[in-house]
């Protein structure tokens, strides 16, 4: 069979994968703290003892978009958004430290601080546990102070501080659970005291819906062209078959 057919087929197949990646971004347009994934296609020439006439396409996710998302005011003292750079530190399902921008926090009956996805939030010395409180305040640098139940307004207690890290974004990638971890080197990052949070806000998704939709439409057309190429390859071999028919 003609090679053009297979090359067009990989093109169409990889277009569908890119389409999936963009539609995942769009589906998460309302997910708190979500970071959009990039998708790019790359030419993969076939190396060997022949002329490099065949270059297959390959879709890949080179990185994640680390631009800031919109800040939505909620007025809830337990909601925090990281202002500018930085990531909040949480524990993943295996109990290891991982990083997220998600700051819609809540308190369990045992006083543990968790985020909207149910992951325990890390403080300076491990997961944060809060005593019963009447009023809670999260400061600009992530310091959590509370007024214990029954205490007067002059008895604010500092409990812990949110662990906010400033990772090297070149070496930072999204895992299969949607949390971020360093790609290489030390798995646990140090807290950076220079980073800031704002309380009473949650950070929305940084998906640019217009860009994603435009990409989806562009990929759609590209895909149609690949199908046209497959059709052309089919026509060519049909013509050859007719020409060479014996009777």
């Amino acid at each position, binding site marked *: 069979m003609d090679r053009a057919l297979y090359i067009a087929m990989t093109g169409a197949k990889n277009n*569908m*994968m890119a*389409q*999936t*990646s*963009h*539609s*995942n*971004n*769009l*589906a*998460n*347009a*309302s*997910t*708190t703290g*979500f970071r959009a*994934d990039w998708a790019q296609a790359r030419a993969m020439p076939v*190396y060997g003892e022949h002329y490099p006439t065949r270059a297959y396409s*390959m*879709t*890949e*996710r080179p*990185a994640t978009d680390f631009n800031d998302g919109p800040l939505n005011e*909620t*007025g*809830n003292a337990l909601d925090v958004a990281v202002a500018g750079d930085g990531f909040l530190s949480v524990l993943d399902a295996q109990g290891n430290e991982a990083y997220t921008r998600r700051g*819609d926090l*809540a*308190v*369990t*009956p*045992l006083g543990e601080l968790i985020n*909207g*996805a*149910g992951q325990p939030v890390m403080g300076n010395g491990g997961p944060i546990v809060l005593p*019963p*409180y*009447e009023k809670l305040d999260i400061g600009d640098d992530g310091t959590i102070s509370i*007024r*214990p*139940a*029954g*205490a007067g307004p002059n008895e604010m207690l500092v409990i812990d501080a949110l662990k906010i890290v400033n990772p090297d974004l070149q070496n930072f990638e*999204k*895992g*299969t*659970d*949607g949390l971020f971890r360093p*790609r290489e080197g030390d798995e646990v990052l140090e807290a950076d005291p220079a980073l800031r949070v704002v309380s009473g806000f949650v950070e929305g998704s940084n998906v640019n*819906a217009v860009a*994603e*939709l435009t990409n*989806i439409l562009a990929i*759609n057309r590209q*895909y*149609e062209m690949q*199908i*046209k190429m497959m*059709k052309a390859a089919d026509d060519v071999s049909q013509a050859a078959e007719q020409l060479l028919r014996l009777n």
Partner: protein
Amino acid sequence: MHKALWVAKTGLEAQDIALANISNNMANASTTGYKKERAVFQDLIYQVQRQPGAQSTQNTQLPSGLQLGTGVRTVGTQKMFTQGDLNMTEQPLDMAINGRGFFQVLMPDGNISYTRDGTFHLNANGEIVTASGYLLEPNIQVPEQTKTITVGTDGIVTAVTANDNIPFEIGQIDVVDFVNPAGLQAIGSNLYLETAASGQPQVGVPSLDGFGAIIQGALETSNVTIVEEMVDMISTQRAYEMNSKVVSTADQMLGFINQNL
């Protein structure tokens, strides 16, 4: 088939739930003691199609891989227990809690439920009941021929009757608090039930030990902000439209290949 189709479907479902939630909040914009809810979304797991760092040949490595997300999931809805505004009604049996805490209500099945709605009435026996007719717990019997009822900020209820001009105590309204009020289960009629996520109820005296004070003659309004809900509704609608556009695009792609090959 086409993965994008299923991914976009999860997006449509999520926006659908978000809109249902927004419309419920807006419908309850004037419900006494209503606490707004927000839908909590989470990205679904990612599938590794090609592992980053895998060998492309014996000597070369792929610089980046391909991980495809599978869409969005609604984790749940979360009640936002921020304080509503106080609406002064000057009715002696209207009460609002200023701060943390809930009134206890005895359900007809004998269970206790909790509410922030302090629209109380008297029933035929002179007992204090909610607007639905359920007894306040602990119940307070108002004597006959009562002229005035006064509720203190600490929940002590005193009455003055026609026969006797000296006020006397007829009961005490307790409030309860939870470690995680957002974990309470809303059962409608402005009532909540205790769950494993909310923690055990802690009974206390209003305005003491961190509990909110009772304000007589006031009602707590809903904490829904209409403007906020409207803006949420606009973004939800547009996100829904865009996700449905993905579904139709994915459909067109599959249709195109069927027609042309």
